[in-house]
């Protein structure tokens, strides 16, 4: 049974190397809406998630909405076990697949096929199992000979295709993803839709962070409205979306 239980989970992190180029990107996306706690003589601490309690059950397809910096990605990362809570308890049962960063875990200088192999190893597959799933991924991405080229030569759409195919190649009980995933071209969007449908039917859990109300209406049966790291609402999609829209207008 796939299930995610968060009980008063709080995630805080220090803002370091603020002037540092490599971190600027991360900061810009994170700071805008999070609560910034200032303490004298200590680095600035951002409370990305504040006492989050949610219970996502088998069969739930949950959309996360909220303004920029509300903590949507942080919540996904926490559920994925990437961030460990400062306080609070979390329990995740089931295998988790993640689709969070577009190039995450891919090495641009390696070919598509090599990246498939590496990801397979990371997921603990044997070489034989990797060989078994490879044709299916090749087929799904529709990248053909490009799979023998370094990933740095790929367009961002092509990267999305490969990333999506990789994350969904192995049956996972829980799929956590950011909305950019569904931003492929029309042909890919149809394929992705079909793939996701097959994944979320049955007892699987999908958690999707998004700004797009159409995507959330289409994919989800529940929604979390997150603002400044707090859960404002966790309810049926329509109610949450309309509350969010109302807040956004004022």
């Amino acid at each position, binding site marked *: 049974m796939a299930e995610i239980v968060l009980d008063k989970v709080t995630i805080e*992190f220090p803002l370091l190397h603020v002037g540092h180029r490599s971190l600027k990107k991360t900061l810009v996306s994170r700071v805008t809406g999070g609560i910034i706690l200032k303490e004298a003589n200590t680095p600035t601490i951002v409370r990305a998630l504040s006492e989050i309690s949610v219970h996502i059950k088998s069969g739930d397809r949950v959309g996360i909405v909220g303004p920029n910096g509300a903590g949507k990605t942080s919540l996904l990362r926490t559920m994925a076990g990437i961030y460990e809570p400062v306080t609070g*308890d979390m329990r995740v049962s089931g295998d988790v697949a993640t689709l969070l960063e577009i190039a995450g875990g891919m090495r641009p200088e390696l070919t598509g096929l090599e990246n498939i192999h590496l990801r397979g190893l990371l997921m603990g597959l044997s070489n034989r199992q990797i060989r078994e799933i490879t044709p299916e991924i090749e087929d799904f991405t529709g990248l053909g000979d490009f799979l023998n080229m370094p990933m740095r030569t790929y367009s961002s759409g092509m990267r999305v295709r490969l990333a999506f195919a990789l994350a969904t190649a192995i049956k996972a009980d829980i799929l956590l993803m950011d909305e950019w995933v569904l931003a492929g071209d029309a042909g890919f969007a149809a394929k992705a839709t079909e793939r996701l449908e097959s994944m979320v039917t049955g007892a699987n859990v999908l958690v999707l962070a998004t700004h797009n109300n159409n995507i959330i209406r289409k994919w989800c049966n529940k929604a979390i409205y997150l603002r400044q790291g707090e859960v404002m609402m966790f309810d049926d999609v329509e109610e949450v979306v309309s509350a969010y829209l109302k807040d956004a207008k004022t």
Partner: protein
Amino acid sequence: MTTASTHKPTRYSLAWDDIRTSLVNVRFWATLAWVDIVQRYRGSILGPFWLTISTAAFISGIGPLYSLLFGLELRDYLPYLASGVIVWNLILSTVNDSCSTFINAGPLMKQMRIPRMAHVFHLITRHVIIFAHSIPLFFVVHAFLGLPWGWQMLWAIPGFILLTAILTNVAIIFAIISVRFRDFIQVVASVMQISFFLTPVIWHVGERPALRLAADLNPLAALIALIRAPLLLEPISPAHIAWAVGGVVVLSAISFLLFARYRRRIIFWV
């Protein structure tokens, strides 16, 4: 709800879990290390042997010159220099690179749950592979000069294992410190640069007691001696054995405590 915190795992058991899962994922980081080597030389004819060639060039350039400067027989000096430079390169590149372990692994760590220590093992493996490309040079020099062989040389193997263990622990410590304090990378680079001249890599202690003492007090000299002394059929000085064995014990303790304490925060620092 069944979320009551019945038995929260301690940070030590979580750290230990991380190490265990990392070890289980051996094929992942070993492949990654190999891929690093292959990819760096993709499209080049000699591939990773470029590393060997550049070390060979260094040794054959510096060897005759310094044997004249130091007034040493080339026959004695060349194997000494070759083994010293090859082992030093392993130490230098591992230590310098270790600082960016987590910084480089950032994108992957943010994408999926992945044990932290796997990145350290990846780094160590990469440098061991590079070392494996250069160490044959010593034997080429040795054979070329027609020097005697001996079973005693096999002591270099435990020496190498000890050295790798020490480097692994240093890498853990440096990786954690420098992901938090980025300035540390520059500090390490400068210290290592000076250390090259202060450590008997290309110069020889000879019969000078002051230099002997300086070398005995230098832990880096001990690390080199672990491999160099057996290869040259010389005994390892007791001071150096003490450094190495003591080093592995103390560093393991420090690296484990540091890792247990800061493992959870690494992701927020990248």
